[in-house]
């Protein structure tokens, strides 16, 4: 259809386009979408970042102290005994409905297998050593004791040393990166740099202290992490983040556009209003917004929405009533496992809920997962951890949570998209929030917990992305001369 040569005015063409194959014409839809972009970019400039105090106090006591204290995980005998006791005396749980696999929640047989392993075969002392594999420290930032792993390259290195901050999500701790670090830290021939890795626990997660005050939203955690990096003498650094760590990472990239050198994530997403509008418009003809190869990761909307609703009950509880649900999780290790494992299964691959054993043991090393569960148990941090959902969603009390999501950032962005990631967005969508998308890989395998499931692919993606980001910074003067947009 030639729009250039029409002589009938606008309307019949529009109707014709609707009628054609019962679908909106792809090119016409693209024009609409470009128009949406134009409206949002030209008519509603992104809100400015307001002044945010950088030293808000989150501690209970006034105990400012900037020492870096070495830290080791120690399980007391009493704690192990109590845990084993609780596992042994667990109640006889209600049998799963016939042939329901994991659809109503974690299958009872699978749960019992995991708990049995935790109770009888999990070697607490050995796993303690794994947790202490890397040098870790605790330091007090804005009143909270933040726990982090800090690995400097040991031997003298050829090229640059680039600091990178790895941020984890829920239901993990910084332990999620331990398996991945081995590969990640090795110097590589073809790259002229090496990483210095800092892996903190989010406040309230694991051995990082939780606050007793309201309002510790992801962007406030971002401020804490920025201060942590400053204390470690890294003014400028890279970030990799996954899961809800991305809230923190992306808000840091928005607030500190000059200091964050690049943001890499395996959970790439833009929550800009125009992205959502484009997503909905795209459902009229997916080929207008996404390569048809990947269309089934985004559409049909109803299917994804149903799946989303089916699997976000936990999110709803976390965001509205964290304290209620936290009581059970801190009191019973079985509850902890049963609350966390279904989320791991469904985020790995949504079809695994139809398999009785959820392919959990095939996909993951159970020890990795139990390390994390044991940390949650040891620190008794379930409630403080899930409160971050409530803080992020307290948009009426603290609108900054969403304002920051709606401000684009010039920080170069790298994305790796695994097959079963919860949200898939094509690069054009991501550019709404991150115009300088320099790296994007789409894979046809893998799920949400990349650092546990596909550590090598993730590590490779970070290395490649960082090289591109370095190049981006080198070439920036091209833009500096002519254009203030990229500054």
């Amino acid at each position, binding site marked *: 259809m030639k729009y250039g040569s029409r002589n009938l005015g606008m309307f019949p063409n529009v109707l014709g386009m609707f009628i054609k194959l019962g679908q909106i014409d792809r090119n016409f839809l693209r024009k609409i979408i470009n128009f949406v972009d134009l409206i949002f970019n030209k008519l509603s400039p992104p809100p400015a970042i307001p002044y945010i105090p950088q030293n808000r106090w989150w501690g209970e006591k006034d105990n400012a102290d900037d020492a870096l204290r070495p830290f080791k995980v120690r399980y007391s005998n009493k704690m192990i005994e109590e845990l084993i006791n609780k596992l042994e005396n667990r109640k006889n*749980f209600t049998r799963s409905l*016939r*042939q329901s696999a994991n659809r109503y929640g974690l299958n009872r047989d699978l749960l019992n297998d995991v708990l049995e392993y935790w109770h009888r075969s999990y070697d607490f002392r050995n796993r303690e050593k794994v947790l202490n594999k890397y040098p870790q420290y605790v330091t007090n930032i804005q009143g909270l004791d933040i726990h982090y792993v800090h690995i400097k390259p040991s031997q003298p290195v050829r090229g640059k040393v680039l600091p990178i901050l790895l941020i984890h999500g829920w239901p993990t701790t910084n332990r999620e990166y331990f398996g991945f670090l081995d590969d990640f830290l090795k110097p590589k021939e073809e790259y002229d740099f090496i990483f210095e890795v800092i892996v903190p626990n989010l406040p309230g997660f694991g051995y990082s202290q939780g606050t007793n005050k309201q309002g510790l939203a992801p962007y406030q955690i971002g401020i804490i992490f920025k201060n942590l990096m400053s204390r470690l003498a890294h003014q400028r650094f890279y970030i990799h983040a996954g899961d809800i760590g991305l809230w923190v990472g992306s808000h840091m990239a928005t607030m500190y556009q000059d200091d964050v050198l690049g943001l890499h994530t395996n959970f790439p997403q833009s929550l800009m209003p125009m992205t959502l509008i484009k997503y909905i418009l795209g459902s009229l003809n997916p080929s207008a917004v996404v390569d048809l190869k990947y269309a089934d990761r985004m559409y049909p909307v109803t299917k994804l929405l149903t799946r989303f609703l089916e699997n976000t*009950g936990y999110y709803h509880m976390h965001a509205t009533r964290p304290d209620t649900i936290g009581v059970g999780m801190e*009191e019973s290790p*079985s509850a902890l496992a049963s609350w966390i494992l279904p989320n791991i299964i469904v985020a790995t691959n949504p079809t695994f809920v139809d398999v009785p054993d959820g392919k959990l043991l095939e996909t993951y090393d159970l020890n990795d997962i139990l390390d994390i569960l044991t940390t949650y148990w040891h620190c008794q941090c379930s409630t403080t951890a899930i409160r971050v959902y409530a803080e992020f969603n307290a948009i009426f009390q603290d609108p900054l949570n969403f304002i920051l999501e709606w401000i684009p950032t010039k920080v170069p962005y790298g994305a790796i998209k695994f097959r079963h990631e919860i949200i898939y967005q094509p690069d054009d969508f991501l550019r709404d929030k991150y115009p300088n998308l320099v790296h994007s890989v789409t894979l046809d395998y893998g799920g949400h917990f990349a650092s546990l499931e596909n550590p090598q692919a993730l590590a490779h993606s970070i290395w490649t992305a960082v090289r591109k980001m370095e190049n981006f910074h080198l070439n920036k003067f*091209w833009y500096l001369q002519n254009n*203030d947009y990229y500054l």
Partner: protein
Amino acid sequence: MKFSTDIIRIMEKHKGLIYLCRIRTGTEPERKSGLKTEGGTGTGIRGEKTEVECRSASTSTTLEGRVRMIYTTKIIVARTHVQREGARTCHSTRRTHWKVLRVFAVTCAFLLALGAVMTSSWLSRVPRKPDIDTNKWWGVGAPPGGAADDTIRRFKIEFNNTVVQALRSRIRERRPLTKPLEGVQSEYGMNTVYLEKILEHWQGTYDFQKRAEMLNRFDHYKTQIQGLDIHFIRAKPAQRDFQGTVLPLLLLHGWPSSSKEFDKIIPMLTTPRKGRGFVFEVVAADLPGFGFSEGTTKPGLNPVQIGVIMRNLMLRLGFQQFYVHAGDWGAQCAMHMATLFPEHVLGFHTNMPLSSMMVSQLKIVLGAFYPSFLVDSKYLDRIYPLKNFFTYLIRESGYFHIQATKPDTIGVALTDSPSGLASYIMEKMAICTNRDQLNTPHGGLEGLNIEDVLDTVTIAWVNSCIVTSMRLYAEGYSTKSSEISILHEIPTIVPTGAINFRYEVVYQPDWILKDKFPNLVHSTTHDFGGHFVALEYPNELVDDIFAATEEFLRFHASK
């Protein structure tokens, strides 16, 4: 410079627009500007983009060069626009334009009218009653070959010592609870400082034996229906020489209760009242999977099926015709029962009247534009503004969301940890009793008697039935069967009585309820009370049941 900056932005992010403009220029000026295009029609945005970029890269033009190129194109765009505007003033083109507009307007009007007619006929359609198997087997395995067990066995509630001791020691040995945030009462969920107090009372001073005795003052029975052992209380009128009629009344509770919810109103219902020529013989049953009733191991036991089970229970007890009072999920079961079996149900009374019909929902949404037209101004704030209602719903429906999707996930926490169970159940009972008290440590719970609340928690604990009870949400919202959604659309002709309390989760005015219950013969609205009124305001509830039944009798007599 500002202009070229904008162009760069557009170029980098909105190539399609440039493309659109360039197409309009026609091919001639573009050749002049040195930009090669595919004859002006173009084969795609991507092709155009690559070309421009390649060009600037291959000829190593500086960025200024690039800007100039686009700049030139922009000028041409503007000029061609002027040319086209000129063309439009041509007489014949304008006439076609108007003709087209007219055709379009008529088509739109026609489509709108057609849409309106179709919507209204679609909304007012009544689907056929689904075929329900009234003997479906819910027990373990296949139904046994011979005659099913239909004995009615006496039953006594016992909180035996081992269970109680184990429970007490679990509560005593609990880990310290995470303190609420500074300045927070119940906004983040159960206030753990308050919870500690309740837990202390539960394991120390709450008298399990006395509570069991109190419940045992009624006659308890169990009988097997469709493979499940159903527990119920049967209470006959206390006064033997009563002259009037004795009407059978089935009481159905909701989540997280059991028949215990009715222990205050049962004696009142079985006591004759002055001026009333009737009194009730009460059957208060535990829904399957709740309290002392057995839960199923098969998927699909939804409110419709529970309605069938409860109707079978009444038939077994020899009541061919009976009245029902119910709240919460019980009201859903009873409503479906009344829709399916109007020959058995003589009257339906509820403290959670709700029409889930499509047309009712639509009315409520449309009513948002002019609320006082829809609902009495006195009760306006119970529905509108819808924003408040939805905020409340989103804030409080986390439990609903998880129970309707992954009941077993949350179930383990509540089966294994008494503190977890108490926190979960009490938070919900509190909010449903008074939603405006989140700024207190109890969150509204103190509207109820704490012993009643602990009875509910204890019954859920000793029967380990919290998972089976929560699965009702999943079954009620399962997409696997359509019988629920069909039954929601069929009006219930049984005479109906409604009582609306202030803090009930949903409020609907009578004229909307009449979509679903055309024979709504009795309706009361109070400005107090919550969701668990049988515990909170037993007197008002019983008064209303008597008054409504009077209306039911009148309804049947006039027929």
